[in-house]
């Protein structure tokens, strides 16, 4: 994974750095030419390489002839890239795959960014009502407050915890802890979501090598297995879903992934969830099953999700503190779990973690990919 943040490197350089680190992290006997096919998540980076982004990626990675494609599902792009590569390997068609994600957002003007950040919902019926994503998530937050009494303070606890984790992650965009007061006093973005309830725009890239069981055993004695993969879709517009306080795509995807893995949510010891906004982490805690529906606010404030808590969530700092380069986030979540499950996460290590879950959402919940990983 490249450092995340406001990066000066070009997209090619970011991706090359991530791939290079990834290849070096394979324990033994790995050669780049073993990679048979590549899946690269990317939303479009402002549009200047909408076509053949896959080829740009493998070219930058020194794998010019490897077949590649851009995978796109808004912020869930590289979660789906991971799933697609996993399915290809499970089918037997591919034995070694490169999975990655890439996004460069901070070289665009604010107006340009607000275009790219606002066409992954229902553009015709939701954007035209005056909404981009802070607005759609704010509508869910307001509804959650109405139905369950969730408070501004509950939301702020998510931001505080994730910034505390980010301060232990040298690759995170934001490395300073914040106080509850600072989070709750920040400026309005789309009420009730304030500045510190919203993730920032970020440049970054992440890369993973996936291998079939036979090849994996040659390359390492400590593989991280993908035990389950699930994905689901739901209505594009937040107000057309059955409930505005629940992401059914999360529920369906995680049920499928856990079922395939033979695990339950109680077996999951560490999770990287999609906290593009603080309310999104609260919804994820409920919809993944860490707590009951409606209790996400108090649960988030209880300390259960901190490193050292019952089930640490977003030890990397999450999208909030680590950053959210749209196409790269899904791959970066798997990267963090890879480190955690091999006991290589340093200051933010979750002690003894063997089972992890990655939760990657597109838009306001229109798409979702969940993976269960196990050491």
């Amino acid at each position, binding site marked *: 994974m490249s450092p995340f943040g406001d990066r000066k490197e070009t997209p090619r350089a970011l991706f090359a750095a991530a791939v290079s680190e990834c290849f070096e992290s394979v324990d033994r006997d790995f050669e780049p030419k073993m990679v048979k096919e590549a899946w690269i998540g990317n939303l479009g980076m402002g549009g200047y390489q909408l076509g053949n982004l896959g080829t740009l990626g493998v070219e930058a990675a020194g794998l010019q002839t490897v077949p590649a494609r851009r995978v796109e599902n808004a912020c869930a792009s590289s979660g789906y890239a991971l799933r697609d590569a996993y399915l290809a390997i499970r089918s037997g068609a591919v034995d070694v795959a490169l999975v990655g994600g890439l996004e460069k957002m901070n070289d665009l003007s604010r107006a340009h960014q607000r275009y790219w950040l606002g066409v992954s919902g229902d*553009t015709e019926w939701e954007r035209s009502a005056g909404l981009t994503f802070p607005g759609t998530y704010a509508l869910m937050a307001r509804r959650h407050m109405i139905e369950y009494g969730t408070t501004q303070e509950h939301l702020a606890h998510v931001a505080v915890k994730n910034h505390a984790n980010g301060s232990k992650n040298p690759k995170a965009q934001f490395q300073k802890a914040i106080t509850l007061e600072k989070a709750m006093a920040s400026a309005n973005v789309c009420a009730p979501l304030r500045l510190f309830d919203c993730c920032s725009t970020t440049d970054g890239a992440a890369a993973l090598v996936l291998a079939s069981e036979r090849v994996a055993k040659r390359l390492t004695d400590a593989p991280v297995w993908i035990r389950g993969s699930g994905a689901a879709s739901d209505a594009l517009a937040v107000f057309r879903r059955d409930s*505005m306080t629940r992401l059914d795509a999360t529920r369906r995807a995680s049920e499928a992934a856990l079922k395939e893995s033979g695990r339950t949510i109680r077996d999951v010891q560490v999770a990287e969830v999609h906290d593009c906004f603080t309310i999104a982490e609260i919804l994820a805690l409920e919809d993944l099953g860490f707590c009951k529906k409606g209790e996400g606010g108090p649960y988030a404030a209880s300390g259960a999700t901190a490193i050292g808590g019952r089930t640490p969530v977003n030890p990397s700092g999450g999208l909030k503190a680590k950053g959210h380069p749209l196409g790269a986030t899904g791959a970066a979540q798997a990267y963090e779990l890879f480190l955690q499950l091999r006991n290589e996460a340093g200051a933010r290590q979750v002690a003894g973690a063997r089972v992890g879950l990655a939760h990657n959402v597109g838009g306001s919940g229109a798409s979702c990919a969940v993976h269960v990983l196990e050491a």
Partner: protein
Amino acid sequence: MAQVLGRLVFPADVATGAAGAGTVGVCDLDEDAATFAVEAARAAIAQAAVEPASIQRIVVHGAGAGTVSTLQTALGTAATQVVENAPDPGGPGSCLEIEIHAPRAGKRDGVIGRQAGATATVKTPAARPTIRGAAARTPTQTAPVVGTADRFERLVKAEEEALRSVPMGAHIPKATWDASLEARYRLLASLCDTCQAGHHPPLPICPVCGNATRTISLWKPGRLYSWTSVASGPTEFDPWLNTWGEYVVAVVEYEHGIRVAGILRDADPNRLVAGEMVEPILRRVFAQEGAWRYGVKFRHAGT
């Protein structure tokens, strides 16, 4: 923030009237002759207790082709003759018709301001004109207030900004937007009689059970389901933000699980209550390629 719209409903034996003499209205960014024409026409039709589809002729004075087509779509009077700028305003109706006066903006009596608004009358065929229903919709501001000139200049500047090509606004092709006009102007929804599921915009086949649906209009008050006060939104809504500050977007709930989103006008975001009644209004939503696009917004019911 905005003016309260004056509601003037004339008794049936009085001919059409304009806004009170000497009154100058300054309308907001999203209000104009077309939106007032639709409101006046709907009110006149309701008072006349006739079916919009039975109106055979629309006579329009002082408005452009855009206002006329907005009226036709919003009233659902597809098979109606339209006569613009007819030479005999106020004359006898030759068939069941509705007559609209919709003056454009301008200065009046040296006072800087804008008057927009419309009056509508529904008339039956007869040797003597028989007025069945009449209504007017105008903004009212009883006297020019300090800052009116500044306010007007700011409004004009914001409108010009909106009509210029907005960099990186989401480009919804005109043909795609136009295909949705009826669904927007009449808040059409599909209803499945088999499983009771509803959907806006209308879908011919029920997405839940696959049976054929029928179309209904939800142009009536609904319940406030959720809301947010927006300080950061789509680029194409910047002229609104720059002129008036934060705007409130509401999600409004109707029966059969249908929810609609739209800006809630004249709302205090700190005093909204879930479940309160809001009603749809037709307003300018944003501009693209130098032309206004109209759609549904909401206001507190009964205002």
